[in-house]
């Protein structure tokens, strides 16, 4: 009982004026975040390259700034902002959240960490738990990605704690794409390597300032070529892979190369 009385003392007596003010501040903050994010997303989609990523990246920052400003405005209206009062309030809140909304609070905390560590930013291409797509929005509790099949996947930030997060471009504007070719082992590997290099070089999707590499791997069933290159626009990564695959197939067939149709199945004793 004594504790509840102490806790009650922490709070100001909430008059009607205070409640209205707090309500208005909260509504204004939500509006700022909503409109700001809409505006930034709209502008970002009208731009390309670095400018697009910069605009996307500023969305979580905008939300954080609005959140801090809102807290600074609301807290003094709720409590006497002394150190003791803040510690007591946060302690009580932590205890309540720890029991009732453990995962929710964990996601919120991870959301804050994600703003600082930036394991993903809007516009990044990430993979979490097998879901691959472009980060569309980073909310307080979740990150939203859009898969290549135009499906939105909502992932709680708490995955940050114990899951592997694969980020294909890590805030940059270059994203490596790989096209695979499987050939019968009897062929001139140097010729194929040069041919595949030219296939990538002549693709209109290619970001030519970035390196093109051809990796050759010998397998029991044949030779595996991995053609690695960067597209001009990350959003065209699948078109790019399709383009180099089609060109590569045509060029290899034109040179009389034979593809492996099915890997050999080896029986293990």
């Amino acid at each position: 009982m004594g504790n509840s009385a102490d806790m009650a003392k922490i709070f100001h007596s909430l008059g009607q004026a205070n409640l209205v003010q707090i309500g208005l501040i909260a509504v204004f903050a939500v509006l700022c975040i909503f409109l700001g994010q809409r505006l930034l997303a709209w502008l970002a989609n009208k731009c390309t390259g670095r400018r697009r990523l910069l605009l996307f990246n500023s969305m979580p920052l905008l939300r954080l700034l609005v959140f801090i400003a809102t807290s600074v405005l609301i807290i003094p209206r709720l409590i006497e902002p002394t150190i003791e009062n803040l510690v007591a309030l946060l302690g009580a809140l932590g205890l309540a959240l720890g029991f009732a909304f453990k995962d929710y609070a964990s996601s919120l905390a991870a959301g804050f960490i994600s703003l600082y560590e930036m394991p993903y930013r809007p516009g990044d291409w990430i993979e979490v738990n097998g879901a691959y797509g472009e980060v569309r929005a980073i909310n307080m509790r979740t990150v939203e990605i859009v898969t290549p099949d135009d499906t939105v996947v909502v992932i709680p930030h708490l995955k940050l704690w114990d899951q592997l997060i694969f980020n294909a471009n890590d805030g940059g504007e270059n994203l490596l794409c790989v096209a695979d070719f499987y050939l019968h082992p009897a062929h001139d590997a140097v010729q194929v390597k040069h041919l595949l290099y030219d296939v990538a070089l002549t693709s209109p999707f290619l970001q030519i300032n970035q390196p093109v590499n051809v990796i050759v791997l010998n397998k029991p069933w044949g030779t595996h070529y991995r053609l690695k290159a960067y597209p001009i626009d990350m959003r065209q990564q699948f078109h790019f892979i399709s383009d180099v695959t089609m060109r590569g197939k045509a060029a290899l067939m034109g040179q009389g190369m034979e593809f492996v149709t099915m890997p050999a199945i080896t029986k293990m004793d």
Partner: protein
Amino acid sequence: MTAPSTKEKNAAPFWEYVRVKDYQLPAAPVNQVARKRFSSLRVLFRRETAEQEAPLHTGEDLKTLPLQQLDRIAPLPAWNDAAASLGLDLQGWLDQENPGPPVIVLLGPPYHGHADILTSWAEQREWEILGAPSPEQILSGDDRWLSGLHKQKDVPWVFPALERAYFRNSMGLNLVRCFLDNAFSGQFGRGIIGCDSWAWAFLQYAWRGRQPIVLTLQSFDQARLAAHFQHLAAAACIRPLRFRLSHTGSYVLPPPEEADESNGISDFVQLLAAHSRGIAGVAWALWRSSLHTEPDEALKIATDQEAQEGSGHDTVWVTPWEQVQHPSLPDGAGRDEAFVLHALLLHNGLEPQLLQQILSMSANQVMETLFRLEAANLVVRNDAIWQVTPLGYPAVRTFLQKNGYLIDQF
């Protein structure tokens, strides 16, 4: 080699050859730069469905000059003068019996005349002109073209358009690589290769050889453009011409000494030089599109007496810079437009069938895109070959640069 003639010496002010790194882009007036930035910001906030800007009228009291008069006042740039001037800049190299680099590259952005200059140069100096391989030879890597090239090593040669020797296709690079290897190793003897700047930018990635000496025609800045246009008009055998802005009356080119200078001189030519990036052909096309005359006024050919007395003059009215129509990319221009425009620039023009092959696009898709771009005055068909128009070139270059495509150095 022959000593430079008087003609060559006179031609020097317009035509100057420099190393590529010394090419200077003409600067725009500061207020124009600010206006351009503001306008690009405005474009960002423009609604997608907004209609294209209405065509600006050039004034109902003025009419476009008849083609014949236009050809007299602003004829095609005289590339033979440019070729003559090349001799002055290459004199040291020409004087060497065994030149250090056997081959020099003359680079130029589209419409800067590199192929015409070299063809003219070869005719003036009786150098052999090497013909380009056919598209079939390029795509099949037929080295008979290469083995048939330049049998007489003691005769110097020019290859005016290297961009006609390759395609951006996995089968279209081998021939040009072999040609460049042979040429720069001195196998063909002394020669000059002309190349479009866009093709050269791409070939820098496709061919890894020793970097040759690369020259280019210096940009046409304000002073050079004004002198060039005056030179063209003066050579037209027309009564002296005064070029004045239609809305203020201020002079566009420096007026003759006896003229009333109270109207001042406009910054039209400076804007023109900056917008055209100093490219002679682009500036020339814009200049022609901005010339007008009054409906009842015909530009007269000077009689002998008038020419001697220097009496009388005609006025050509120039559209204000803000009202000159610059083609722009159609709303919603995206990947297809970028691919087609980029391919056209990399090859300095292509036939639709080759575009189809290079871009892996369907025939319908290619033609639809070409017609859309043609309607926006960005591409034009010359015989069977489609090219980016000189008027549309600045907009196309900016569009490709903004979208991250490989661009040239100019």
